[in-house]
């Protein structure tokens, strides 16, 4: 068994254990053995089955889905921009998805939230990409400046929309903070189509992303159709980002950190980086969500606060030493 295989087995096992523990957490605490019993159809108490199947299973699956989607998008954006600081949040995809989703809510959902979020994410990334490309493409500074300007602008527009439509203000505000509070099966089914599609587009781009590591000219000289590859990568990553954002609001840093941890563990080839990032993203987000709902229980804090608290220092560390990982 190779080192990479054992790492994948280890990460999968960790994710399963964490999921089991997460299922047990909440106002009614359920032990791992009771959880297993209830899931396999022989609940110790009838209420366990209701609590798990009606609320917690959907929530845990949604956390895993969003963690995987954000991590997959993060790996893809980092590879596309050849930049270790790229992630769905930094390149404006999250902001674009948030604006799209907010517009959908403000206009009474004439367009489904997921579709509006995808269009918003795609639009924002294409603009940031065009700006970064025009001004010395690939340089850390131009990407970060373009992304920061875009995110600030998008969040300003979102704030303006919120001020102008006060009855949905609270709903959207708490959603934008990022969190899984009150999420259930309907959110899961809505998000999973876009997330699976996004990941299904991103994974086959692994070899193209490896080639892009050598720079665009070298990738093209190796036979890569740059335009097509870039477009597919942006579409795949925007779809996964939009899925996560429309289900759980803006959750920063998961998409940034997971690919870095993955490269440390399994090497830099995207064929292993993307799946390993997805596992790590799910693990990180599950931990953040567990913290969010237990640390001030019964009050539930937005999970985005915890990913930012964990990820912010990590981001600053990378900024200080971008080639360090």
């Amino acid at each position, binding site marked *: 068994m190779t080192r990479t295989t054992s790492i994948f087995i280890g990460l999968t096992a960790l994710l399963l254990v964490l999921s089991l523990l997460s299922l047990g957490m909440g106002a009614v605490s359920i032990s791992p053995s009771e959880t297993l019993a209830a899931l396999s159809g022989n609940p110790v108490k009838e209420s366990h089955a209701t609590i798990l199947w009606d609320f917690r299973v959907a929530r845990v699956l949604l956390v895993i889905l969003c963690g995987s989607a954000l991590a997959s998008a993060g790996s893809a954006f980092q590879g596309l921009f050849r930049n270790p600081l790229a992630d769905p949040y930094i390149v404006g995809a999250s902001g674009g998805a948030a604006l799209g989703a907010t517009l959908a809510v403000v206009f009474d959902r004439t367009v489904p939230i997921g579709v509006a979020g995808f269009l918003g994410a795609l639009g924002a990334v294409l603009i940031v990409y065009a700006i970064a490309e025009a001004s010395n493409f690939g340089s850390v500074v131009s990407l970060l400046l373009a992304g920061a300007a875009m995110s600030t602008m998008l969040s300003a527009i979102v704030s303006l929309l919120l001020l102008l439509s006060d009855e949905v203000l609270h709903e959207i505000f708490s959603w934008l903070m990022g969190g899984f509070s009150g999420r259930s099966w309907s959110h899961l089914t809505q998000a999973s189509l876009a997330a699976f599609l996004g990941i299904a587009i991103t994974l086959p781009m692994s*070899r193209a992303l490896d080639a892009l*590591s*050598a720079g665009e000219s070298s990738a093209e*000289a190796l*036979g890569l159709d740059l335009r097509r590859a870039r477009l597919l990568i942006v579409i795949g990553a925007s779809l996964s980002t939009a899925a996560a954002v429309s289900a759980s609001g803006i959750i920063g840093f998961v998409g940034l950190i997971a690919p870095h941890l993955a490269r440390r563990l399994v090497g*830099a080839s995207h064929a292993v980086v993307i799946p390993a990032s997805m596992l790590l993203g799910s693990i990180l987000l599950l931990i953040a969500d567990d913290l969010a709902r237990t640390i001030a229980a019964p009050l539930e804090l937005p999970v985005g606060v915890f990913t930012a608290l964990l990820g912010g220092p990590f981001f600053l560390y990378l900024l200080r030493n971008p080639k360090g990982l």
Partner: protein
Amino acid sequence: MLLSANSLSLSYNGHNVVEGFNLSIPKRTIVGLVGPNGSGKTTILRALAGLIEPRAGTALVQGKHASRLDKRLRARQIGWVPQQESAAWPLTVAEVVRLGRAPHRGWLMPFTAEDMDIVESALARADLLALQHRPVNKLSGGEFQRVLIARVLAQEPEALLLDEPTASLDIHHQIQVLDLVRGLVHEKGLSVVMAIHDLNLAVRYCDQLVLLNRGRQVSAGTPEEVLTPQNLHTVFGVNAQLYRDPWGAWAVSVQ
């Protein structure tokens, strides 16, 4: 004729850097592009590789416009090695060299045992077997340059475009890489165009030279036809001439 350039004029960053360049590269031949910095060598190679669109004139691969060919088909015919490349991620040497098989295998299909054999022999020929699991960002400049050579060997193209392939190599590896290229030319009938600074290496390894100055072709032909004392003086501003070294090969002596 696999590769040819006809009245090729090229721009780089909005500046006209090459005017009316003509070249046809027969099989089994190494053509050297020589000239001072900024004479347009790199830009010409990029155009022959189809990576840039000419401002005027044509760069043809088997009679078709290089920049408009199907990318994978083109990559099976032409291998381009840049002077420098930076790796965004710490892929291993073997992973980078394996990408040379992408034009053959495509971007989705897993690499086959045949691909792996070709990669292994490319690694061996570039003297990289011992380094194959090393991340490429942990290599010296010379080691990295050999990785690029190995990758283009794995690519198995019919023509090689090499941009200063020996610039960051020590003398042992300079000779090794150029011997390797010459061996491939004889063995597989490759056509090679290389930009090369070192005139001694140029006269030693190239069958033909093209002397460039500020984007214009000054002279073309065999090394002794091109590197005349007068041309060397006009283009490089030095008093120099070719002579036979103790082993009977051409070398350049500067006063």
